[in-house]
């Protein structure tokens, strides 16, 4: 029997006009249904029923999308948006040295903006001492003036500068990581999709595993923290979740975490996907724990609190000397604190930056039973497991979108990530 869980709004995947949508459950599976008066019915599987959907979403805000009748228009944040900016993504080039099977930023290559223009953008987007800017593309390392851009971001007042990269230039040039570190780079988000080259051939069009490893080694030499970012595609790399997690842990402390991203069908991938082409968040959660072979449990991963719970999860750990993960939080244990008055976006930004940035710690501690030992170990070997389930034209749910805290800076506006990349 089909049960209506909640009503929301979405867009038609064909004409992109806003239409009403419903989340319904059929047995344990959850679907997003919508009907375009011109293009017909669309039904997309968004939850495979491997964990309890309603329990997962218990903390969600289910605000009525009719409060924001014009959304989504890529018009930037307005008074109807429900979340502050946590991270700002800034595209500094559309050029790339790969041609991936999937890419959310599929654009025709155009000339790079001048460094003066980029500096103007940075001055405009920065809240001094607060902003976490993600330099992205394209492949941002194709810009030879990247160190100048990073320095300009710091000079403009960015608290943290993150680089989203495929790692090729880091691998080719052993001094590159140090150059960027010295310019002020805080941490690297390294595209890392699997443990064998079959995965890279399928997703990126060439063998890259050795390049990824070399890039990590060079970041280690520069004391630059790296977070591995696998994009997950059914039949390609969903069987490698546990291996990628263990690999990431084995590279602690240079690798600060792993950030899983189920494939979305936007940008270069925009075709009609079937439900078999999707990795749902609960499937990722379930498979990751199973494949971790006891390294983590379900209780140690939490629904996203900075965005909508359907948008992701996170877990916070310390890597112990025997490569085990000590969880810092568990569901069911007390989580409320006496002084949690910070905004969610601000708290999240502070949390992720603290974990993803690598700090050299003198006299690294191997035991955590003492206050000082714990503090040293968590500074040196903190580790996060995070996931972000982006939305495409089929899965877009305006209730989720209104809670988005990852925004793309475009023409002076902050546009929620998923609406920015739906063409």
């Amino acid at each position, binding site marked *: 029997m089909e049960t209506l869980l909640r009503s929301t709004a979405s867009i038609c995947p064909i004409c992109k006009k806003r239409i009403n949508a419903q989340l319904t459950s059929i047995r344990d599976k959850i679907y997003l249904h919508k009907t375009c008066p011109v293009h017909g019915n669309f039904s997309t599987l968004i939850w495979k029923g491997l964990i309890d959907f309603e329990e997962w979403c218990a903390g969600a805000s289910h605000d009525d999308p009719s409060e924001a009748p014009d959304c989504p228009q890529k018009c930037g944040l307005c008074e109807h948006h429900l979340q502050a900016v946590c991270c700002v993504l800034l595209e500094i080039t559309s050029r790339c040295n790969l041609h991936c099977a999937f890419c959310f930023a599929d654009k025709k290559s155009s000339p790079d903006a001048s460094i003066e223009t980029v500096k103007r953008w940075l001055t405009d987007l920065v809240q001094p001492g607060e902003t976490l800017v993600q330099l992205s593309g394209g492949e941002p390392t194709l810009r030879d003036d990247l160190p100048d851009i990073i320095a300009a971001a710091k000079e403009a007042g960015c608290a943290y500068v993150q680089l989203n990269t495929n790692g090729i230039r880091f691998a080719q040039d052993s001094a590159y990581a140090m150059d960027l570190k010295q310019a002020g780079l805080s941490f690297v988000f390294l595209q890392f999709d699997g443990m064998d080259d079959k995965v890279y051939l399928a997703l990126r069009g060439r063998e890259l595993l050795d390049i990824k490893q070399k890039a990590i080694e060079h970041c280690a030499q520069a004391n630059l923290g790296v977070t591995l970012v696998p994009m997950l595609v059914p039949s390609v790399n969903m069987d490698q979740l546990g291996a990628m997690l263990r690999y990431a842990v084995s590279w602690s402390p240079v690798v600060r975490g792993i950030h899983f991203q189920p494939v979305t069908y936007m940008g270069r991938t925009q075709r009609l996907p079937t439900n078999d082409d999707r990795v749902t968040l609960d499937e990722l959660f379930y498979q990751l724990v199973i494949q971790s072979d006891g390294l983590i449990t379900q209780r140690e991963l939490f629904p996203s609190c900075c965005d909508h719970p359907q948008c992701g999860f996170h877990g916070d750990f310390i890597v112990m000397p025997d490569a085990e993960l000590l969880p810092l939080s568990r569901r069911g244990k007390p989580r409320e604190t006496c002084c949690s008055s910070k905004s969610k976006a601000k708290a999240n930004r*502070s949390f992720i930056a603290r974990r993803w940035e690598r700090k050299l710690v003198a006299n690294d501690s191997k035991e955590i039973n003492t206050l000082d030992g*714990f503090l040293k170990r968590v500074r040196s070997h903190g580790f996060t497991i995070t996931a972000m389930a982006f939305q495409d034209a089929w899965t877009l749910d305006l209730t989720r979108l209104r809670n988005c805290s990852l925004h793309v800076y475009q023409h002076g506006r902050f546009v929620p990530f998923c609406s920015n990349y739906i063409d």
Partner: protein
Amino acid sequence: MHEEENLICMPCGVPLQRLPVQFSYLGHTFDAEAPRCPQCGQVYLSYKLVSERIAEAETELEDK
């Protein structure tokens, strides 16, 4: 004068000594040393300890 020197436990009237203490927060327990009354066990937490190491440990343990 150092904040932790020459402290007297008011109820017991004896000097505090640096003794083992345990701090617990959000399900985690840590050993440390702090000025403590050898008779009643009352612990003195200095502003520096609370505002630096304990505050940092709390932040690290609080879920984002």
